[in-house]
């Protein structure tokens, strides 16, 4: 009987609360401070291991893409409750792609370009589909591209996130017009816009922001490295990082460039293969190879209060086979007052999502389909 009781206690301990494992102590490049990375495992009611974690400001959300639900956990990994799940009705949420937590509640991206607004209690408010003002006939636009027209742009699917600011959210956008695109047109790298400001009332693309930096003019062309990332601080400042450019660009709330900083990563493979034809767009092996073998800058996260900027980068690989991007090694740079203070190896899916406390951060995510385990990381230093 005693043995059964011990087993029950052990079971509750393991599955009733988060389990910490794999604490790694890693040291910064100049030993100014040491960085600790913990993995906090969670046990969802069911899990496909295909998902992502997001931070609400006080809780960690686990979004399971395949099973279609959102559950909340404490920063220690304890289950709190199931917040949302997909439903079958024609007007209901049919799939969950990503979630943005903000001061008014939650913005959930569902199927395609449809978004759902929920209040802080996860009560449904409204839904809308992102659209562009139809200022042109589509066939006219195909013959004569207009870089400033929102009709030219689509939501960027790679590494997407949708930070909310007031009545708007911001989204990465891409343009694949037959003649105005990253594969064949040098003016694309000067004139194309990168971020759309979208109304949370009705989904209208209201404004287009930012262009590629001058660095992209050195190439003809690098269409598989046009991705970038941005972070919006509480002051309204925007930080941008681009895949082939070591510089981090800082814009103020009025979208004027106010500063640049950043240094190259360690041992990055930056001999980017150039392509000049549209047919490479259909060559999935070339795309996959670029994402696996090349070194490039990836995500950016800013703790404005502490004057810290975190940026990840992939180093690239020498491997002759073709692998996935998730097998391309990842490293993290930490800047304090715009000076590099640390550069460390991190797990391949590491992506900072929020601040828990001073010098303590949450990151997405650990997924092991074979062992059926998943969890988030806690970075502290």
């Amino acid at each position, binding site marked *: 009987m005693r043995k059964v009781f011990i087993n029950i206690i052990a079971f509750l301990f393991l599955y009733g609360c988060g389990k910490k494992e794999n604490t790694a102590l890693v040291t910064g490049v100049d030993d100014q401070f040491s960085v600790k990375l913990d993995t906090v495992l969670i046990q969802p009611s069911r899990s496909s291991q295909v998902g992502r974690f997001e931070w609400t400001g006080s809780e960690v959300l686990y979004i399971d893409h395949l099973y279609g639900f959102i559950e909340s956990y404490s920063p220690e990994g304890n289950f709190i409750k199931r917040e949302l799940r997909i439903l079958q009705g024609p007007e209901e949420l049919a799939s969950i792609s990503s979630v943005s937590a903000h001061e008014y509640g939650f913005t959930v991206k569902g199927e395609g370009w449809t978004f759902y607004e929920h209040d802080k209690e996860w009560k449904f408010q409204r839904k809308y589909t992102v659209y562009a003002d139809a200022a042109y006939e589509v066939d006219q636009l195909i*013959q004569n591209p207009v870089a400033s027209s929102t*009709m030219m742009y689509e939501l960027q699917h790679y590494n997407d996130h949708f930070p909310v600011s007031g009545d708007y959210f911001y989204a990465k956008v891409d343009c694949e017009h*037959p003649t105005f695109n990253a594969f064949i047109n040098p003016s694309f790298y000067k004139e194309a816009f990168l971020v759309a400001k979208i109304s949370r009332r009705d989904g209208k693309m209201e404004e287009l922001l930012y262009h590629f930096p001058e660095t992209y003019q050195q190439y003809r062309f690098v269409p598989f490295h046009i991705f970038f990332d941005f972070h919006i601080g509480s002051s309204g400042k925007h930080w941008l990082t681009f895949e082939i450019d070591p510089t981090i660009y800082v814009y103020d709330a009025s979208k004027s460039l106010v500063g640049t900083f950043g240094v190259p990563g360690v041992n990055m493979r930056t001999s980017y293969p150039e392509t000049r*034809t549209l047919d490479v767009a259909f060559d999935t092996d070339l795309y996959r190879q670029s994402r696996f073998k090349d070194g490039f800058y990836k995500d950016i996260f800013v703790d404005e209060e502490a004057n810290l900027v975190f940026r990840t980068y992939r180093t690239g690989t020498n491997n002759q086979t073709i692998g996935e991007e998730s097998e391309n090694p990842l490293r993290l740079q930490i800047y304090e007052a715009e000076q590099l203070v640390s550069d460390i190896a991190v797990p391949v899916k590491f992506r900072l999502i929020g601040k828990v406390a001073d010098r303590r951060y949450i990151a997405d995510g650990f997924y092991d389909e074979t062992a059926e385990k998943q969890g988030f990381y806690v970075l502290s230093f």
Partner: protein
Amino acid sequence: MKKLSFLIVLGVFFTAFLPSQQVQADPNPLSDAISLAKVIAEGIDKGCDNLRESGALQKRCKNLDCIPVACISFRKACGSLSDCEK
């Protein structure tokens, strides 16, 4: 919509058989692209952007996925990811 799919696939098929012009080559990709643009323009339904509201907008193959794109996209149509792996 079938006409649009057919024409996009035709356009992609057409470009796939153009000679591959890689790095350091002196290509003339713009004329190829203009041909493709004409094919796509003929196939796009009027009010394509509005079709998104009803969920009728096609998905197309892009970067190892089958996703909704802008009406003007040169990508080929797909129903699911398996269509993009062919």
